[in-house]
Structure formats: C-alpha cells, structure tokens
C-alpha cells in the first residue's frame, strides 16, 4: 500500500467512524441498523490483503472497545483482527470476486465477528442465543443490503476506470 493509499484509508476510516455515529442511527428501523465498520474492514481486507486487513480490523475494533465496558476491552479488537485476516486471504489482487460473492464474504465476516465477540466477552449461552436472533441476524441482513449497494457502486466505478 502506497503512502497515498494509507492516507486515503485513514480518511475513509474517519468517514466510516462519522457515518456509523450519524447515519447509523438515522437508518435504524425498529432498533436495527447497519454496521458500516464491518463493511469497511471487509472492503479494506479484500482490497489490500490480510496484513492490512488485520491492521485496520484491529484499529476499527479498538475504536469500538474504547466505548465498551472496560472489562470487555480487547473483545472487538480481537474479533475484528480475525475478520481482517480471514477476509484478507481472498485479496482481490489474486482473486476476482463478484458482488454476490462479496456479499457472501460480508455475511460470513459479520457472523464470525459477532461469534468471537460473544465468545470473548463470556456472555451466557441463553443471552448469546437471544442476542443472535434479536441483533446479529437482523443487523446482518440490513448490513448486507447496504454493503451490497456499496459493493455494486464501487464495482461499477472500477469497471468505468
């Protein structure tokens, strides 16, 4: 990744941070909203590979950990690092992924992230089951819709270039 690439990704990260804090709330339907941070980590990992995916996954997770209960510090960082690394194995430099495949990767990343998060925080089984159906599944579907639109728009932009 070039110096310009780092700077662009940093600006994008700040933008995603702002977007999640503002648009993330406006777009909520019955308390269910999209997760722009997961979309960001998946996009960066697909574009630049596992090492960069790990770095931005860690930073994105840490930015969430700072506002979480202090006992859970590190849970988001670890979960997002795992997502960044796993998704980074499908780096677009080596593979060509079409939009439906990217949406599939996003869905897997979303579930992997939540599962590791629940595992690390040590929540009880029935609490996790409840959260899975009331939060993970609906928010994953919403994120897939938003992510799909963003992936489609970005793929169109690339093919134009």
């Amino acid at each position: 990744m070039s110096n310009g690439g780092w700077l662009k990704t940093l600006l994008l990260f700040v933008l995603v941070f702002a977007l999640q804090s503002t648009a993330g709330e406006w777009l909520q339907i019955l308390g269910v909203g999209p997760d722009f941070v997961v979309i960001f980590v998946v996009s960066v990992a697909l574009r630049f590979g596992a090492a960069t995916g790990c770095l931005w996954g860690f930073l994105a997770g840490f930015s969430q950990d700072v506002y979480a209960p202090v006992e859970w510090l590190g849970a988001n960082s670890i979960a997002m690092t795992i997502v960044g690394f796993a998704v980074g194995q499908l780096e677009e430099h080596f593979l060509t992924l079409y939009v439906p495949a990217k949406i599939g990767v996003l869905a897997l990343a979303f579930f992997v992230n939540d599962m590791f998060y629940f595992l690390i925080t040590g929540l009880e089984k029935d609490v996790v089951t409840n959260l899975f159906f009331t939060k993970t599944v609906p928010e994953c579907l919403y994120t897939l819709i938003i992510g799909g639109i963003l992936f489609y728009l970005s793929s169109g932009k690339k093919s134009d270039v």
Partner: protein
Amino acid sequence: MLRAFRFIVDLFTQRHGVVAFAFFLVLGILMHEASTEVRQSVVDKALSTVFYPVQLLISSVNDFKSLQAENDHLKAENARLRQETYHASEGLQELARLHTLVRFDDKWDFPIVTSRVVGHNPGRFLTTLVINRGTHHGVKENMPVMSMNGLVGKISKAMLTHSRVQLLVDPNLKLSVLERRTRVVGFLESVDGHLLSAMIPSHAGVAEGDTLITSGLGGIFPKGIPVGTVHKVRKADLDVMSLMDVKPFQEFSTLEEVFVMQKDPDWIIQELLDE
C-alpha cells in the same frame, strides 16, 4: 529509520499476513487480560488523546453556537420543569399515604449541567457516551445523567473537559427501581449490553405497561426519575421473583443532549466508592 519501517512492513506482510495477525491478536489478548487499572488507563488515554478530539470535530460540523447557548438554557429549564412535574405527582402520591412528609421537593434541588453528546461507540453495542462537560464544569464521577424523557445513566469517568457516561444498558450498572403503581422495589440491569431487564418480586403483581422509576435506595440516583416501562413479564429462575423486559423512556442511540444532575452520592455510598 526508513529501512526500519520497511523492515517492519515487510515482516508484517510475510506469509499472507500471518505475522501481522499474530501481532495484533497478541496485542488484543494482552489488552483483554490486563488488570482493570491498565485497561482503564488505556481507554482513558485513547479517548482523551485520539477519539474525543476527532468526535468533537465531527459533532461540531453542524454546531451553531449562537443558537446553542440559548437552546441549552431552555432545554435545561424544560428538563427541570418536566422532572419536577413528574416528581410532584410522585410527591402527591406519597403525601397521601404518609401525611407526614411535607418538604419532599428538597431532594430535587440539585443544579443541572447541560451537555452535548459528542461521541459514542461507532458499533452496534452502545454502552457508553462521551459528553462535552467535565470537572471544569462541575461534573464529577457518579453524578446521575438524564434526558428530558428519563434516566440515561451516570458519569463513570470525569476528565477536565469531557466525561464518559455509563448508560443503563452497561452490564456493570445495576440500579434499584421502584414500580410506580404497586410501590414494590426491584433491581434493573442489562446482562448483554443491549436489553434492560428488571427483577421484581412476583407477589406484587407488576404487569406489562407499568412504570419503573428510581427508588433512591442505591444512594446515587435520587428517587423518582422515570426509567422505563415493563414491556414483557417472564418467569425468573426463582418462583418468588419475576423477570421483566424493560423499555427505557429514553432511546440511547438518538441522544444529542443530556443533563447531568450535580448530586454527589449519599455519604455511605461515597465511603463505599472511596474504598
């Protein structure tokens, strides 16, 4: 210097990022396994030096300061009046029962600090907010935080110009509540950082739609602040208790302004907190 940087970048990108993965994973585990003091210090430093300035900048984009001051003043007054109205009806109920209480309103005589929410978790599990008022403005740890609709949480960490607010959905915040109709006391908590649940004795007959307010027993929150309504009643592990899903009066993700009540914890609680 450049060589060292290149060496690190090369090292991290080796073997499809395995080195970078191991590094960040170990860093995450170290943070997770660190002592509470270390974790608190990491969070405070990151919040004060990086996240607070960035979120302050983001939240200031639409900030029209000339209108803000007047708006803040009016909202504080409105919040106080609404709370006082709510409290007055509480007082009437209590007065009718006890006859002896005549100076009930004294406990609401706390100054209010208006503050703006400048930051919160850019993720899906919202348990903490950051507000733009700190010790410089008279905000201290454990002061109650509310909105015009009801209780929000308490100050968990006060810094010079900003503070962290621990929301009701934070699993570490447990709260003594009183059901308004039956006057029975229970406690409220969130086990998953998402939903609020209350544990109340079954014999009281608390039903869906009943209102929960602060009981004043914990020593941090004064009595009578509206908390939420009972959304669903479920059976708890113990037959004598009922577990209730609670819908808070205030939706936390849409908060823009909050009011900090400048109330110090009762002396006995303060002693426990100091210990």
